[in-house]
């Protein structure tokens, strides 16, 4: 199987300075891992994927599969399977012909025949018996699965998925997502998944990279990323979060905590680095609780959404938007607090 590595990859469009789509990207995707690139549109995630596939040539840096440099290898010789947002099905070929297209260039694995392989793949994506249809006779979700089957048919070393779900409705997306992760883990195939949807990214990934403005902000497991965002951008982008900027005042007596002043209100925080004047810290909605009586703030409620297990409350404290997750909330104004250890420092200077 395959380990994918990007080292110092940069991409500029246009001549001279041009616009930088990627700046010095370093990345390692481990063998058999489902790795997600997530970020807002224009952050460079799709460019990264296209560079891995060979559709874009990096201006600087190298791409290697299992230590073998790939930068000069054309896409058709890289042994990657790609599924695009628009699927890119060939409208003049049947479903079976689409799935079998890659087998014109590479023999099916394990000595199976082309027809067997096509049947096998259609079964894998639950499209048995659909081989003779034209792609435009299928629903969006079915087309998406044909595209997946087509990408998998030649048994690629690497599977690349570029926003494969974004054209589908939410319910279908979830069921396909499960199907995809099932197939991926069954095959143990190294997979790079691009999405702008951070919920989706957290849900399916072994590890993920958050990208912003052509750079990687953080690479981590979903859990790490959620609880310990490395940058303010990651903190705000991944999941709901409450971010505060404050001035460091004094060290608390026991030495492990500091007092931090945010617009006249003083909080006690853990984990502040020594010798800094200012910090940005975040507190996840679930960490703000009515039962905690430290670091209290008084939130003016604007709206609340009932979500079954919990209620999402959106309000303001001193003009800042605040998100809470409570069991129940009917007040117009409520007071919540957090433990110093639940605040996570994302920036300090």
């Amino acid at each position, binding site marked *: 199987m395959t380990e994918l590595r990007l080292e110092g990859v940069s991409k500029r469009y246009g001549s001279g300075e041009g616009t930088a789509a990627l700046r010095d990207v370093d990345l390692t995707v481990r063998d058999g891992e489902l790795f997600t690139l997530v970020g807002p549109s224009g952050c460079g995630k799709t460019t990264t994927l296209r560079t891995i596939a060979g559709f874009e040539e990096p201006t600087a840096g190298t791409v290697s599969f299992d230590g073998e440099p790939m930068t000069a290898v054309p896409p058709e010789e890289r042994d990657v399977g790609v599924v695009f947002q628009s699927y*890119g099905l060939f409208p003049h070929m049947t479903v079976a012909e689409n799935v079998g297209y890659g087998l014109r260039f590479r023999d099916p694995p394990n000595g199976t025949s082309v027809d067997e392989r096509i049947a096998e793949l259609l079964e894998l994506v639950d499209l048995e018996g659909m081989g003779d249809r034209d792609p435009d006779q299928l629903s969006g979700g079915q087309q998406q699965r044909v595209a997946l089957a087509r990408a998998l048919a030649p048994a690629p070393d690497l599977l690349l998925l570029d926003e494969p779900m974004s054209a589908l409705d939410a319910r279908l997306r979830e069921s396909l997502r499960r199907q995809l992760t099932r197939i991926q883990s069954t095959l143990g195939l190294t997979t790079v998944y691009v999405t702008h949807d951070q919920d989706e990214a957290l849900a399916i990934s072994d590890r993920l990279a958050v990208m912003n403005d052509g750079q990687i902000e953080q690479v981590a497991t979903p859990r790490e990323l959620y609880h310990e965002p490395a940058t303010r951008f990651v903190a705000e982008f991944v999941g709901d979060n409450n971010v505060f900027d404050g001035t460091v005042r004094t060290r608390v007596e026991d030495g492990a905590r500091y007092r931090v002043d945010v617009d006249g209100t003083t909080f006690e925080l853990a984990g502040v680095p020594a010798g800094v004047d200012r910090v940005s810290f975040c507190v996840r909605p679930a960490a703000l609780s009515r039962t905690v009586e430290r670091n209290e703030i008084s939130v003016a409620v604007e709206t609340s959404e009932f979500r079954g297990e919990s209620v999402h409350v959106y309000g303001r404290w001193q003009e800042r938007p605040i998100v809470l997750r409570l069991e129940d909330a009917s007040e117009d104004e409520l007071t919540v607090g957090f433990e110093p250890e639940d605040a996570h420092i994302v920036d300090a200077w």
Partner: protein
Amino acid sequence: MSPLDRLPSDRGRASEWLEHHALVAVTLGTAVVLVVMLYLPAGVVFSEAFVDDGLPTLGHFTDVLTDPFYFGILADVFAEPLAIGTHLGSLAAWVGAVSISLSVGYPIPGLDVPVPWIGIDTPGVRKGLFGFTAYQAALSTIASVALGLPAAYVLANYEFYGRQTLRSLTILPFVLPGIMVAVGFYAMFGRTGTLNSLLGAVGLGPFAFIEANPLAIVILAHAFYNAPLVARLTVTAWEAVDARTVETARSLGASERRAFRDVVVPQLAPAVLTGALLTFIFTFMTFPIVLALGGLQLATVEVWIYDRIQQLDYAEAATLAVLETILSLGLTYAYLRYESAQTGFARAPSPPSKERLIPDLRTALSLRRLAIFGYGLVALLLFVGPMASLVVGSFTDGSGFTLRNYAFLLERQLEGASFQTQPWPAVRNSLLFGVATLLVAVPMGVVISVVTVRAGRRGRIVDTLAMLPLAVSGVVFGIGLLQGLVFGISLPGGWRFQVTGAVAIVVAHAVAAYPFVTRNVSPLLGSLDPAMVESARALGASRTRAMLDIELPLVANGIVAGAAFAFAISVGEFSSTVILASGSESYTMPVAVERYLGRRSGPAIAMGTLLLIVTAASFVVIDRVGGRYEL
């Protein structure tokens, strides 16, 4: 495992290499052909515009731009570009003198049918030769689009007996030599022409259609050539309209008219505008037809280029030609910017179904059907009329029916001496060159489309330059071929670079023809989802293979239409053929028409009729053969 290890072993290295480099090879071949057969000949003459007594100069441009004969009132602006106040003052004075009036006019010659007429009375503006040329080209473009679109509508939306054949024959006017069109128009619309004979049979006329308004008849002649071009381009696009998009719009509550406007029109617009652009460029550079029907008062820039060339004033001819080319390429670039902004994605072809034109008598009498039949009558008069009148003319003389013109052709074929022009070699050469042109021009045009269609601004510039064959004065190109290729260019070491003969003719035709392939293919190619090609490549297909497997089948309509144009251009081409064929046996049908033209026009008209019949048959065959590859 290295991906290279997985290459199939049963294919030879050579064919592997070829496939990987085919696109590059054809691109390079195209570039070489363009340099030798286009840039070299055009450059040889164009360079004269920038040289005076061996020194570089822009003086020729200053002379032409500030000559009111060429640029009318703009000449003042060019002479003093910074005197903005003065120019604005004259503009304001001009606008102030415009008056609008309502009156009743009698626009139809000889018929007292009053029509309310809004007269916009503008004080005379000196247009100059360029201004007038652009003016008549604009009018011709409007007329060609107006007459071409209904044909496209009928051919794309209705099923009727002979539709396929009619569709094939739409480009027939394209191959007719200018002189034949002129004679055909006189024979159809002249005072004793076919139309007046028909009207006379019901007691009307005769009307002086041609004398009444020479400019109008020139514009109709331009429409005769170019409306079929607009129609053909539009039919191709219309048949590629995705019917599902219309159905979606209808299901969302759009009326039929609204769905047409919102869904169909945007899909047709690139084709219609391509047709309009080509028509404008062609009619801007129109040459024989204007003076043949309209007279010297309607002279255009190209007429003056020809005159300068005859007087060996190459500098002025080249200057005028360079200005023509700049104008044409500027328009082309502007259009291509528009076209690339229009490209949508992933149109799976699902062509609209065709309605029967005459399902029953009741429907046949509906307003829309009657309008179609009315248009059909106009088309019959304008397009079929001149050609039919030519054919009739080839069988008649002062004493009635005669076969002597065909007897002449037969006798010349059977008994002609070797130094005489014979009909069969002309037919054979035309067909051979036509097929060879098609085989060369289609790959050239397709490759240029493939290379430029997604290459952004740089691609657009290449694409614009690739349209140069349409934007270079035919007269200047002819002289360039003569000086650059027939007489040859001296190279160091005593070598002389010369190109003539059949191969040169085919390549010259291909150079003239490939832009039609490109313009037919590019919009379709631009509308394909790039994910299709990229999926294919990720699955192991080389760029060439992806083009052959995915792109070409999906743009087959455009390729077949382009191929038909390429054939038509080759068969109809005269000016470079006659130069490259001189002194050889490589003459074609239009050249034979020209050579048979003597004090009696009969033999030439008979040869022209033969040209019509042979090309009509060829178009039907091309479309039938090509139709198998269409979607």
